[in-house]
């Protein structure tokens, strides 16, 4: 058995898939594994590290897009971006391996766009679960993300997502707010999506954090937060009060980044802090 070790990123896994084909060991004799998952080595296996190679990764992504269609392709990318808890990682199929074997199966089909229907296949099923987890969190954040207007008119949002959803969010907001200058900052991964009015967004690494940058809000910002809080508290029907249901629909982990939960006590509309 040949085990190819690749980096935990879209490019890393795609480079791994490229090499898995290029080496011609046969797919039955090849496995992919993420470097971060490698705790112990198995007997009678050859291990090889695969470096990230952008040109190879691009070839793979072009092939996948052409053969599977953009929908399946984006599901694969979402699966790779998904977060796994350490225990889930130990219990289930390695992510790189799941994507690799799904790709192999998909390319053997006449119509690759149907590959994700084969939920009975354990590799496909794993990809499906992972991609669903990313997609769901991204969909939550489309609503839960909050922009604040800075002194210079730029809209700034901070998020702490489990999965790597920044690109999905930036796509959405570029379409929605084409004329705004905005920044979405993923504080967990220290990456920001920066959008300039009338153009496409860019991803930028922010190793030192964005705290200094996002300190000063515009004059109006406080006013609109106050109005939003007034709305948020007035819209609740007292006779139906149900904090459990609220907790189920809006998990606590999203709340630190949402203005309406900043004061931390949802019963006191008066307490307003920036």
């Amino acid at each position, binding site marked *: 058995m040949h085990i190819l070790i690749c980096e935990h990123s879209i490019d890393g896994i795609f480079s791994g898939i490229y090499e898995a084909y290029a080496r011609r060991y046969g797919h039955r004799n090849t496995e992919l594994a993420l470097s971060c998952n490698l705790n112990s080595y198995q007997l009678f296996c050859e291990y090889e590290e695969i470096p990230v190679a952008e040109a190879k990764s691009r070839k793979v992504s072009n092939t996948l897009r052409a053969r599977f269609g953009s929908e399946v392709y984006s599901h694969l990318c979402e699966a790779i971006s998904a977060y796994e808890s350490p225990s889930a990682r130990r219990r289930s199929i390695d992510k790189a391996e799941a994507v690799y074997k799904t790709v192999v199966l998909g390319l053997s089909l006449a119509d690759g766009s*149907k590959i994700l*229907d*084969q*939920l*009975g*296949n354990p590799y496909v*099923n794993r990809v499906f*679960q992972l991609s669903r987890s990313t997609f769901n969190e991204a*969909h939550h954040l*489309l*609503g*839960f*993300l*909050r*922009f*604040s*207007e800075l002194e210079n008119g730029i*809209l700034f*949002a901070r998020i702490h997502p489990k999965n790597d959803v920044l690109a999905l969010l930036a796509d959405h*907001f570029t*379409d*929605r*707010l*084409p*004329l*705004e200058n905005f920044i979405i900052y993923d504080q967990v991964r220290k990456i920001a999506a920066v959008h300039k009015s*009338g153009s496409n967004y860019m991803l930028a690494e922010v190793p030192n954090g964005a705290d200094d940058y996002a300190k000063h809000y515009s004059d*109006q910002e406080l006013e*609109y937060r*106050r*109005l*939003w809080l*007034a*709305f*948020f*508290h*007035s*819209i*609740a*029907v*007292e*006779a*139906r*009060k*149900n*904090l*459990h*249901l*609220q907790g*189920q*629909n*809006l998990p606590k982990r999203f709340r630190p980044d*949402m203005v*309406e939960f900043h004061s931390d006590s*949802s*019963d006191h509309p008066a307490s307003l802090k920036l």
Partner: protein
Amino acid sequence: MQITQEMSLIEKLHILTDAAKYDVACTSSGVDRGGNGKSMGNCLAPGVCHSFSSDGRCISLLKILFTNECIFNCSYCLNNCNNDVKRASFTPEEICTLTMEFYRRNYIEGLFLSSGILISPNYTMDLIYQTLYRLRHVHHFNGYIHVKAIPGADPVLVEQTGFLADRMSINLELPTSESLHRLAPYKSRKTILKPMRQIQNRIQQNKYALLEQNRGTLCRTVGHETGEVSSARNPQAPRFVPAGQSTQMIIGATPENDFQVMSVAEGLYQNFGLKRVFYSAFVNVTNNTNLPMLPQGPPLLREHRLYQADWLLRYYHFQVSELLSEERPDFNIYLDPKCDWALRHLECFPVEINQAEYRTLLRVPGIGYKSAQRILQARKHTALTFADLKKIGVVLKRALYFITCGGKMMYRTKLEEDYICRNLIGDRSQIPREIRQSSYQQLSLFDLGHV
């Protein structure tokens, strides 16, 4: 005498939100519209929830009244003209600014504008139209708008407003016209159903017109270019209420039973092409003598069962006559309507997962319409096992009594009504936790009357 006084925006927002909150619809779904690069906003078909208030309901739209002044005296409504509440009105510009500023901060998905009736239905409808016009054409707002049509307003105004909105709704308020007459003397079935029919017809015409237009554009595109069909729809073509219309009924203010309520809903879906019917558990806010006092709180469990049945109508091809009848006019409070139906039709079960057709799968408790679709796809390639079903998302603790995989049931179990019923009731998810906790008292009380 009216004392006018300058009121701050925040005070108005407070009053007019408070006055709008008993309207349940807050969905932003039903229309997919990409951004156009020039104005602010887009729409996603599944809708987006932006927050959840302390009652656990989704906040998606800025749900406000234009004014809470009203010439009508509907006894269930907080804003009726005999009620002593603080009154306020927005100006169109205030609504536009609030919507735009909230939208760009991603607080909301759009605007939900309703209103009390100021001076006359026409006057009010015109104010609403002016506001939407301003929002769309002065502020270039391209996001979601849900607007109420005012019963009794001129059809021309309703039509003009419809071209600016994504969804329109007219509340049916109460399931029967007698109840409506008793509690809302200024409203009638006629003034409610007439605009509903008008909107339905207009939506249809608009769809055909767009189809015709698309066909024209498609031919041209294919003829001229490389054969690749770009998104051919002309973005300038006006669309009439593209997300469809909805309505709402108040549950528990009047003596109608579930069978009557669901039959009305079914009629609305079939004859008026409605997208959604909403059910609102009655909250007594006016203490009017016409209305029941509800010391145990609003009938939330009944509302929950009605919504479950509503989904069975819209997604699971059930008919009301299968779920309820004159003899059994109310839903079982212990079991959801689908389990209840399955228990009374054990002759249809067990169902073989690897062979049953889609509509049969849909009727199995524990299998949702998405799981059913996935089963159909997945079983083409391999025979499914119970472990696969679990991964696909089937709720086995409910489904296991009704299905076989490869001819075998999951455990040894009896296909017997009492046995399955006992086990299903033991499953605590049958009655949502929040209802169990918040109003257990209510449960045991209204059990006695119904079962």
